[in-house]
């Protein structure tokens, strides 16, 4: 018990230090690297408080994807020579606002009654009819499916926001620059060997999500990372955003989710309600298609707005 407490103490110190490092870093690249480290420490903390689903998401999205996007953004700012530091007033305002949010959160957590109110027992009790074993997946795709649906729609909106940064003549073109393939580079080897393994692991994480930690978002992130790796090694190119198959892939997951949800009105008496006995197959079907959509959306978010002329 005391060993666990000691470990928790070190993790908290590490998280605070990583946070301080992120804020105090001299340039935006250093800050982005520190943010990734911060995300990984946070993932360990989630594991410690027995929330492996959140830990997986934090490691994949918080550290991996967001870290990649921040590093990309900082490189873009460097090359555009626009890296400016926020003014004193802005910084002070940001500090005050962050401190306020942190204080409010601390108050809320410290003010929790003993024992804290919990819906965990109710969530477990209602799980058998869904055929799922992981209560987190139950919350995400059965009890609060509407939140998950909206979250995926927000992803599409974010992608549209990224694309809309393209100048008119590049609309419909390919994002980013073409990476040159270099057979002598170790990256080429990694890009050839890792994706087959990563695809299996991504699908495994999607599949076990029904009963154990994992699910569509975590699996999709791994698939997107494998795709990105092959892009970075110059083995494949990011598809032009005008491609019909790509746009169908992006909307397929949320679209199918919406159709299943609307069908719930007819066959199960409510939006996003599953007919008895069909909950698990339907949830699996939605999750598989969502995983593919999430992978495509995350890749395209990382790749950024189109920068090359559209194909004629």
């Amino acid at each position, binding site marked *: 018990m005391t060993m666990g407490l000691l470990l928790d103490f070190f993790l908290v110190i590490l998280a605070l230090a990583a946070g301080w490092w992120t804020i105090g870093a001299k340039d935006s690249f250093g800050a982005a690297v520190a943010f990734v480290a911060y995300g990984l420490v946070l993932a360990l903390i989630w594991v410690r408080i027995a929330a492996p689903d959140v830990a997986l998401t934090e490691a994949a999205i918080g550290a991996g994807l967001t870290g990649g996007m921040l590093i990309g953004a900082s490189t873009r700012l460097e090359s555009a020579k626009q890296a400016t530091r926020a003014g004193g007033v802005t910084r002070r305002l940001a500090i005050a606002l962050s401190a306020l949010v942190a204080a409010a959160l601390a108050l809320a957590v410290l003010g929790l009654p003993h024992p804290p109110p919990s819906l965990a027992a109710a969530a477990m009790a209602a799980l058998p009819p869904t055929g799922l074993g992981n209560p987190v997946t139950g919350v995400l795709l059965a009890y609060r499916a509407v939140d998950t649906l909206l979250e995926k729609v927000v992803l599409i909106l974010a992608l549209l926001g990224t694309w809309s940064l393209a100048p008119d003549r590049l609309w419909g073109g390919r994002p980013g620059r073409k990476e040159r393939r270099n057979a002598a580079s*170790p*990256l080429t*080897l*990694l890009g050839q*060997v*890792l994706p087959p*393994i990563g695809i299996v692991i991504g699908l495994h994480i999607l599949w076990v999500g029904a009963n154990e930690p994992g699910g569509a978002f975590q699996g999709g992130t791994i698939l997107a990372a494998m795709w990105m790796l092959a892009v970075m090694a110059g083995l494949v190119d990011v598809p032009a955003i005008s491609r019909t198959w790509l746009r169908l892939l992006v909307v397929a997951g949320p679209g199918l989710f919406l159709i299943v949800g609307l069908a719930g009105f007819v066959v199960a008496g409510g939006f996003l309600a599953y007919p008895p006995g069909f909950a698990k197959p339907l949830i699996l079907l939605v999750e598989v298609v969502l995983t593919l959509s999430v992978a495509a959306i995350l890749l395209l978010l990382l790749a950024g707005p189109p920068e090359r002329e559209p194909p004629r």
Partner: protein
Amino acid sequence: MSLVRDILTVLSVTAGAFFFLAGTVGLLRFPDTLTRLHALTKADNLGLGLVVLGLALQTWSGPAVLKLAVVWLLALFSGATVAQLIAHRARDDRPGE
């Protein structure tokens, strides 16, 4: 039998932690990028390998041992690749060559 396994685990994980410590000291103390990389990859490869070995002795079940081994091999592979990439970059950036 389980006592033997426990002892082996303690020995293995301790040795792994020692390699991580040594690698960290090397990372902080060595003079240039290439030597620092050398220290870091040794810590990753051997240190993680020994920790994985110690944990595998504890789980003692086929699938779990397989997963642990895959974790180690993937860390080896990506670590080696990233070390090569950083080393290439460091060599190209060195002035006067």
